[in-house]
């Protein structure tokens, strides 16, 4: 098997056929003599247009495996765009994929799904990439993944929750477009991959202690109902206005300090309960908590610092998933972040998208830190040669 090749193409054309034609021009040249084993597709087309999208990709590039999902916003090079298509093609790579609707028991179904994949390759596995859209409890889904793959297995994924975000569509080979389920890809090659999840939110105020919590709900902080943690900074108005609480908790997420991880794991409470407790989108990561604040310069410099950690001789591709909440704070300054990223990555293709949630291992330098689902953070995957 030859050296793994990765190519990227994108188009902002709102017409499906034109977009496929434009995005595949470079890829057809690059892969003129080699078969495309995998084509990752990120798109913004409506459900009705996806069949045409898939058949056009098949017609133009004829990859062995095609998987993808819709995203609210797409990122390619130095641009963010809301209409279009991104294609990431891999050749000379050994990869297997599958789809599962995950409709009954999220934990068991996810675990079984992973086992089915793993069995096919007799335990040989290097890296897992998943695209999921489920309606169940997200920490359970993550636990299902960990049961199947192990607590420190390298993975990266996009996650969409039907209750909390816009519907996302999943694409898996010639299957019809799915609104719910998981598309998983298991890479078997010795891929050199750097990955990290980070946010750049700045902690402030004194550290507090989570005294009482269960799974995703924090009941008490510093021996008082959890709401008092926010009331301390934002006053009594919080309890009376849920809209204000949501606005505040989105802008000032909780930063959890975990042993061994230098950064704060940032998470926004998504629901305020009547007893003053609040619910997170994921399991409570640790008991040491501080308030965090988004400062634009810090958000951008955090991305730069993260890329600098990837010590590769050369990069093949950088896949960047941005949390929607974090994107909202940068907004008009977002091109500055992409500019900073491209300055560090040079000619390496940079693609990705803005998604509501993304998941993966917190850091490739310490796999024992475990997996994480982020909404205020970004996840970066760089494939390259060491």
């Amino acid at each position, binding site marked *: 098997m030859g050296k793994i090749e990765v190519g990227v193409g994108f188009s902002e054309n709102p017409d499906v056929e034109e977009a496929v034609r434009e995005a595949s021009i470079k890829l057809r040249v690059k892969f003129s003599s080699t078969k495309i084993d995998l084509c990752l597709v990120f798109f913004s087309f409506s459900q009705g247009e996806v069949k045409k999208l898939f058949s056009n990709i098949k017609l133009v590039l004829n990859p062995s495996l095609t998987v993808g999902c819709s995203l609210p916003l797409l990122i390619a090079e130095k641009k963010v765009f809301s209409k279009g298509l991104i294609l990431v093609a891999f050749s000379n790579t050994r990869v297997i994929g599958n789809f599962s609707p995950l409709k009954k028991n999220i934990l068991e179904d996810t675990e079984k799904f992973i086992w089915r994949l793993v069995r096919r390759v007799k335990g040989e596995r290097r890296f897992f990439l998943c695209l999921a859209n489920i309606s169940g409890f997200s920490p359970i889904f993550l636990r299902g993944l960990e049961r199947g793959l192990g607590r420190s297995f390298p993975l990266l994924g996009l996650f969409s929750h039907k209750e909390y975000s816009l519907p996302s569509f999943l694409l898996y080979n010639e299957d019809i477009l799915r609104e719910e389920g998981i598309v998983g890809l298991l890479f078997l090659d010795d891929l050199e991959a750097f990955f990290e999840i980070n946010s750049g939110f700045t902690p402030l*105020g*004194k550290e507090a202690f989570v005294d009482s919590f269960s799974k995703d709900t924090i009941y008490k902080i510093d021996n008082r109902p959890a709401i008092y943690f926010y009331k301390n900074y934002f006053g009594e108005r919080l309890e009376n206005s849920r809209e204000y609480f949501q606005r505040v908790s989105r802008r*000032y997420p909780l930063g959890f300090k975990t042993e061994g991880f230098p950064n704060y794991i940032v998470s926004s409470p998504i629901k305020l309960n009547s007893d003053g407790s609040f619910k997170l989108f994921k399991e409570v990561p640790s008991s040491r908590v501080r308030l965090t604040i988004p400062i634009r310069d810090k958000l951008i410099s955090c991305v730069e610092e993260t890329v600098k950690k990837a010590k590769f001789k050369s990069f093949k591709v950088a896949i960047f998933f941005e949390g929607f909440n974090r994107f909202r704070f940068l907004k008009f300054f977002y091109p500055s972040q992409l500019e900073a990223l491209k300055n560090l990555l040079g000619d390496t293709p940079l693609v990705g998208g803005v998604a509501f949630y993304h998941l993966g291992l917190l850091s490739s330098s310490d796999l024992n830190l475990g997996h994480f689902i982020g909404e205020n953070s970004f996840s970066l995957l760089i494939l390259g040669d060491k």
Partner: protein
Amino acid sequence: MENLEFLSSTGVSLFFFLISLAVIILLAIFSLKKMDRIRILEKEVRRLENNLREMDEQAKLIVKTDLELSRVQEELDKRVSGLLALQRLSQSLSSTLEEENLFLAIREDLISGLGFSSCLIVLKKEDSLVAPVSIGVNDEFKKMMVSQEGVDFLRFLVGKKVISHKDISPEFEYLSQKINFKSFLASSIQSKDNPLGFLILGNTFQEEISGGALEIAEIFSSQLAQSLENIRLFEEVFRSRQELEERVKERTNSLQEALEKIKKISRLKSEFVSAVSHEFRTPLTSIKGYASLLVQEKFGKIPAEVRLRLERINQQADTLVNMINELLDIARIESGRSKIEIQKIELSEMIKRIADYFYPQLKGKNLQLILTLSSLFVEADKSLLERVFINLLSNAIKFTPQGKKIEIKCEKKDNYVEVSVRDEGIGIPQEDLENIFKEFYKIDNPLQKEVKGTGLGLSLVRNIIKAHRGEIWVESKAGEGSKFIFTLPLAQESKI
């Protein structure tokens, strides 16, 4: 012995007492030190607590400032997004001059960029209302807005700036119940004082409307009015232009037809004149011949009275022959049948020669002839050009009283020659100036009537000049003399 025992026991007691005292003192010292240490630690804890409190207070202040900043930033972001969308919308609106395309340009994404989820545009069309744009509006409300309720609502909006759902008059409060928005803005679409319709921008989720949204709605509505006015003006101009083009076409056709008719009539007239003149000439020659023979008494003596009559016949026959000749010349030149033999002519020489012919007449009337001539060459038919000078000079002599001046001037102007014959004669009344070159035209003036002429001379002159690609005109005032000016193209050599 007892004393010794007593001393010994007292000493031991004292010893223990002293030891105990020392221990107590040491313990006290140690305790005091500990207490100090505790106090220092407590102080340190208090300091740390204060620091943490201060840090928290600072954090509160930072958060408060950031919250305010983010609110301002959000407002600013909304305005920037709104203005960007408005700019895109304005570009789309101003890039079309067709009403249909104008409304197609108002797309959902642009309305959303302006910060609204819905848009309804209602316009007056003849005697009714229509809704060419309806984005995110329920059908019931749309139907209501194009009926009498819409007419009343438009009347309410006219003359007002943009109003929000909160400012709506009680009589229209029922609209808020029918509409599927949580908040909305409404504005009339007005071109000058003419209300064209109205615009409603709504939000399905958001209750509050920012100041920026009001401005954006105001700009949008005036931009819309401007575009609709532009379209109306363009259509008006386009229609008028089409009508004008049609009229010009019709007029050109009728003029072309008239011109063809005139040409045909003129040709027929020339042919007729030519034919008739030819026919006249033969009998006239006979009449004149016989009259001459009779005067010469070739057929016997004739009485004096008869001679006088015969001489008059002879003279009138001469006049008639001249007239016929001139008519024939005019007809020939007009029809293009006259052969013009072009040659290079030195004008000053020709003018001097012609002036010599008229020497007797000039002397007879004691007229002074001034020649201001440059040596210039023209390409012309010599005999025709001579007839021009002869006609003009003889006219000048005829109509100039005794002792006055006549001036002939010849000068170069650009690439042509301008020749003028100016007299100090009776002049031509203003109303006759434009007719003077017409055939048989005679000025209604006693003196003019005295002077004999065919009435064809100036017409012939004009035809000759035109045949040579020149122009002729007259400048004159009654009683102050006349100046006949004509131009001729310069011969090639003279141009240099």
